[in-house]
């Protein structure tokens, strides 16, 4: 494919600079490394942090998967995929197992990640203490001194206000017993997938100009109180209306006709794969869902 861009959009110098920041981030798990976030042909806040990581890492042999809130087909995911395959001429996929780089917003795929894979998460707000302490200078000090009371104070506030420790998303984690980190707005359900992950996890914040990382096999613990232990969202007695899966993260959909709540896998490619598996041989496996 012909393109007037350099391979993977950026010039080699820019990519090298991003990779240097990435290496530093891997060396200090959970620590936010500043980097010179570049201008991108998509607006900041639409995944430019993740995209810059992906572009700096991608090679000719790589296979890319991009998901947005569990979906491979959302406009955002498709645009990002297009930009990368346009400028790098690489192949993309929807299958988690097949991908070497997975860029994602708001989810970690249901299929367990393997060693050798890289998960790139898009981050809107990298500083887990920001609501507690507005000053960057101060939060830097707090990280340096491992002073994380603020993270627990925010969780306590949540419990006082809502009567539950069930945060919506982006529930802070302690990485390698050293840095408290924002896991990006993934549901609590996905937090445990970060713990001792076989895949390398990179997190990029374009607007805030930060890169941080969880290297493979790193201890990642969601913060909690002794008498209010961390719990993931429970879909215990629920199963996906399409593929029948249980024990995965599900979206609640209210049926227009009956007004009843039904559930379906949030991870669309996982759901599709399950449906295909369940199909009898020769069945209509590409039925629209």
């Amino acid at each position: 494919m012909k393109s007037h861009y350099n391979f993977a959009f950026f010039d080699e110098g820019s990519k090298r600079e991003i990779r240097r920041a990435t290496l530093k981030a891997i060396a200090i798990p959970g620590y936010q490394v500043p980097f010179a976030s570049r201008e991108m042909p998509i607006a900041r806040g639409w995944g430019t942090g993740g995209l810059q990581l992906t572009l700096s890492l991608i090679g000719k042999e790589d296979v890319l998967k991009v998901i947005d809130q569990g979906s491979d087909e959302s406009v955002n995911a498709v645009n990002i995929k297009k930009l990368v395959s346009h400028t790098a001429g690489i192949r993309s996929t929807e299958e988690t197992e097949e991908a070497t780089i997975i860029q994602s917003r708001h989810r970690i795929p249901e299929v367990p990640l393997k060693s050798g894979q890289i998960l790139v998460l898009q981050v809107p707000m990298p500083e887990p203490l920001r609501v507690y302490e507005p000053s960057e200078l101060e939060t830097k000090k707090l990280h340096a001194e491992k002073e994380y009371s603020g993270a627990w104070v925010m969780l306590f506030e949540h419990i006082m206000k809502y009567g539950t420790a069930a945060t919506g998303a982006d529930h802070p984690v302690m990485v390698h017993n050293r840095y408290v980190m924002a896991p990006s707005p993934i549901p609590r359900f996905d937090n445990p997938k970060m713990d001792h992950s076989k895949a390398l996890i990179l997190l990029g914040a374009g607007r805030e100009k930060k890169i941080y990382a969880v290297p493979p096999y790193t201890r990642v613990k969601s913060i909690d109180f002794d008498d209010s232990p961390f719990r993931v969202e429970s879909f215990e007695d629920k199963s996906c209306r399409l593929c029948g899966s249980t024990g995965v993260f599900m979206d609640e959909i209210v049926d227009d006709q009956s007004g009843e709540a039904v559930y379906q896998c949030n991870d669309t490619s996982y759901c599709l794969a399950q449906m295909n598996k369940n199909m009898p041989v020769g069945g209509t496996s590409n039925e629209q869902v």
Partner: protein
Amino acid sequence: MNKFEYPVLSIRNLNKQFGPGCNHCQNQKESTLIKNYCPVCGTVYACQDISFDLYPGEILGIVGESGSGKSTLMRCLYFDQEVTSGEAILSTYEHGERNLFQESPQRKRYIRNHLMGKVYQNPLLGLKMDFTSIGNIAEKLISAGSRSVEEMEARGRELLEYVNIPAFRMKEAPKNFSGGMQQRVQIAKALSNRPPILLLDEVTTGLDLSVQASVLDLIKYLQREMNISMVVVSHDLGVIRMLADRSMVMLDGKVIEQGLTDQILEDPQSPYTQQLVHSLL
């Protein structure tokens, strides 16, 4: 005060300056400063060579005009600011063998969170105005290592009731509260770890007289019931007279007089204190 008791807190030769100083002001400070300020290099000598002892269960008053260095002294004692030089010994910390000012930031945090409480002149500095009142109290408990929601909620409720904030308002943010209530939330927070030492900087300034009286009563009550040692700062000699057994008078960064409060009031020695006492009468 019992002369045979050991002080809980001893401060020796505390100095705090803002600015680098110059030949002019470092050599003969006395003659060259204009109040606390060097006209040549602009350095402010906010606290100069301050020494005092605080005994168990006593209230030590610090009085002085605006700019005399009271808040700076309190900030130094609570490690909000670094001293330029000096020594602080806390009898309950490491057998009173360490100069607190030379401890690491982590140790200083430990001392602050476990052994001291402070009420700021400006409640904006002492409270997270958007967080719940009980969350503000929990902040201090969490900093001191508590990880039990139930315990903290119970303790917070107890303290807020103690300072007369009704239980049904404990989940409200201090920004919705009156000035007097905010100061009482600050006091509840400062008390949460049962610290041996409480630092109070102008707790009643800017409050209505009746509200002032209720806060002063609370402080008196704390001293009686909890036997906490307190340093109480005010530019209002009336407040000091009401609360403090012993007092220091500060002027231009220096302690110009100290002793029993009654004695200072009856027989002020320095011309400045005489003026101050007269204005009270």
